[in-house]
């Protein structure tokens, strides 16, 4: 795949330099973070680069941007990060059900083991076709079925493509859960138990933390990370580099190790969106599980019995038993 090689040439640093720091620059445009007067905690000594409003690259101490999301206004959160159009590409040929994306996401969002924003499903389109592992976050649809039905505007679509939930507005009618065709949403059925440092955080739709009993949550594409120029937790947690995240406006996506052109990879690898015929226009693309880097069965080796149990109703597991 020559094209693929070529796209790798856009180095990661380059991408982060022009791209993701823009996000942080945009925060300065919003006039929120870099104010020296803000009580900045300890200076960590670690410098990071930022792009200012007038296009200069400056270095600041890391701690200056840490609490960015906590100072955003309601409107800034609802509008999204200016100039962005986030997109995710999942390379199914690389996934071997390591489930690190799930555990990292759960840890960062204070989820219980039975609550998953990201799921890894065992998929098999029919009994003659090959099984494959299928990571599934919220698709942040451009025509989101969930947003349409919300009676109180608690779930909304932002200009940067992300669909978020405001759990201080949500009345818990669960219509969005019933309406989402991709089973992306979870409901908090009981009092939420959180580690103390998460529980004490000020709530923000961008972090989905802390969750509240009687409201809904789902994968949020970690916009708080993007605001700091970082990648979503699932992307960085995956040791296989399955998940790519990036910006359609810049036409680049990265899994942390390699940065590639979004349009190229979609064209060359026949990228597609799952169940796109429902008209929801998802922002998550899949690269088909061809030329796999691991045999499918390896996905069952490292997982616990509890996880294996989950797949017991699939055609694949049933046929294996026979």
């Amino acid at each position, binding site marked *: 795949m020559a094209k693929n090689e070529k796209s790798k040439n856009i180095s990661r640093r380059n991408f982060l330099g022009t791209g993701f720091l823009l996000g942080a620059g945009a925060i300065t445009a919003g006039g929120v973070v870099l104010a020296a007067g803000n009580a900045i905690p300890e200076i960590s000594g670690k410098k990071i680069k930022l792009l200012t409003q007038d296009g200069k690259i400056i270095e600041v101490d890391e701690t200056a941007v840490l609490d960015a999301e906590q100072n955003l206004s309601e409107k800034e959160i609802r509008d999204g990060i200016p100039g962005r159009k986030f997109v995710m590409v999942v390379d199914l040929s690389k996934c071997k059900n390591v489930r690190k994306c799930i555990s990292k996401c759960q840890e960062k969002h204070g989820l219980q083991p039975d609550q998953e924003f990201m799921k890894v499903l065992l998929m098999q389109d029919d009994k003659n076709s090959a099984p494959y592992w299928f990571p599934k976050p919220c698709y942040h649809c451009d025509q989101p079925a969930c947003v349409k*039905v*919300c009676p*109180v505007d608690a779930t909304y679509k932002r200009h940067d493509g992300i669909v978020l939930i405001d759990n201080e*507005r949500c009345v818990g009618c669960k219509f969005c859960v019933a309406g989402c065709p991709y089973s992306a949403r979870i409901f908090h059925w*009981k009092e939420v138990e959180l580690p103390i440092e998460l529980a004490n955080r000020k709530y923000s739709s961008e972090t989905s933390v802390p969750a509240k009993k009687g*409201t809904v949550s789902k994968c949020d594409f970690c916009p708080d990370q993007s605001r700091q120029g970082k990648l979503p937790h699932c992307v960085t947690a995956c040791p296989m580099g399955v998940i790519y995240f990036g910006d359609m406006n810049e036409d680049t996506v990265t899994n942390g190790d390699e940065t590639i052109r979004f349009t190229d990879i979609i064209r060359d690898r026949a990228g597609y969106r799952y169940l796109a015929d429902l008209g929801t226009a998802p922002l998550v693309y899949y690269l088909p599980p061809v030329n796999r880097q691991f045999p499918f069965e390896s996905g069952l080796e490292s997982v616990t019995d509890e996880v294996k*149990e989950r797949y017991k109703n699939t055609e694949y597991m049933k046929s294996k038993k026979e």
Partner: protein
Amino acid sequence: MEYDSSKLMREFAPQIEKTSKSWYLVFATLLAFFLFGIFGLYTQITKGHVVTGMRDNVVWGVYIVNFIFFMGMSYAGALISGILYLFKSSWRGPVIRMAELITIISLFIGPVFILFCIGRLDRLYYLILFPRIQSPITWDVIAISTDLIGCIIFLYLSFIEDFAKLRDYKELQLPKWRKRLYKYLALGYQETPWQYKIISHTKNIMAAMVIAIAIIVYSVLAWIFGVTLQPGWHSTIFGPYFVIAAVYSGTGMLIVVMWIFRKVYKLEEYITEKHFVNVGVLLLILAAFFGYFTFSDYLTKWYGSIKMDKVLIDKLFTSEYYYMFIASNYLGVLVPIIVVGIKKFRTITNITIAGLITVVSLWFNRYLIVVPTLETPYFPIQDVRSEWLSYSVTWVEMSLILAGISVFCMLFMLASKFVPIISISEMEKHTGETRGLMRD
């Protein structure tokens, strides 16, 4: 038969004046169920919705089923009383009040069930504070509140004449405050020709409006499901299908209520086999319609067999929901048709049984619409916990269903102590109309 109001008053006054021991006994039992439901609700509010059988896939359970069910019955009452009134059916007299009571009572109970399903009751007013008109729930809020107001006005109008009669009936043995209450509620109605004209006019207009509003309310309710993309719900037929199902279940309920009151208050003279047969024929027609809608909905899904539709249909037709499907969609359609359709089966008891079967099977019909679809999402549910895979009712939900049913009965019992269970003014008018006919 001719009725005049003093005879009727004499006949019906005891129903209001005297309350038997067994009445209290039944009422106390129902109250106990109700309190049990309150306890269930308390558990649910303090512990959260985990105490129900609902989980992330099946997020709506029997609460929504009950919501649709009671709203459906209320609609039926409105439609039946509206139509009977508008078309001046000669036999409406003894049954119209019961239909009206079904309407108003279930209209109060239905929406309460949807509240049980809401995670944050403390934020309920957000629905009015931050409404989004795109959401079918907002349509529902608007439609149901309009319906509630419309029905209350319509029913109040049809009660005024009886309130006036109760006020004027001197021998009525009731405490002073009750009499004063009737006087107050009668709004100074004296049956002057002018007053009579106004009240009949308004009632005609309201009857027509209530029918229209009720169609809208019930369609909106159906669209909550219809507008989603879920297999089994995404159907264009749902609006009219729900409307028919609603009238159908309500008609069944009317028959059951007629039978109970006829027994309890010894109304054999007024509610005769003719009434049962007439309402029964209505039930038969609706059964045919309902069967037809059910058939065409499932036929198109089964014949086309889109992948997910097929999975759902298989669950309904051949596996998990096989018996429930037979009970609700075969028996619920065929029994009323056979019982009323074949002359020799057409007895009061049989028709009542058919009515009861209709009510129960329609409840299951709603269950089969709500739950299996939620258990059949596009993505496979891969989970170890069985309660996550399929839905089953818990004691909390059970307690609230029972509470709903007992409130329905209790309100009926209370209503029967407050107004004559047979509309006296309608009976009189009916006499007047037939007399008029005979003279012509």
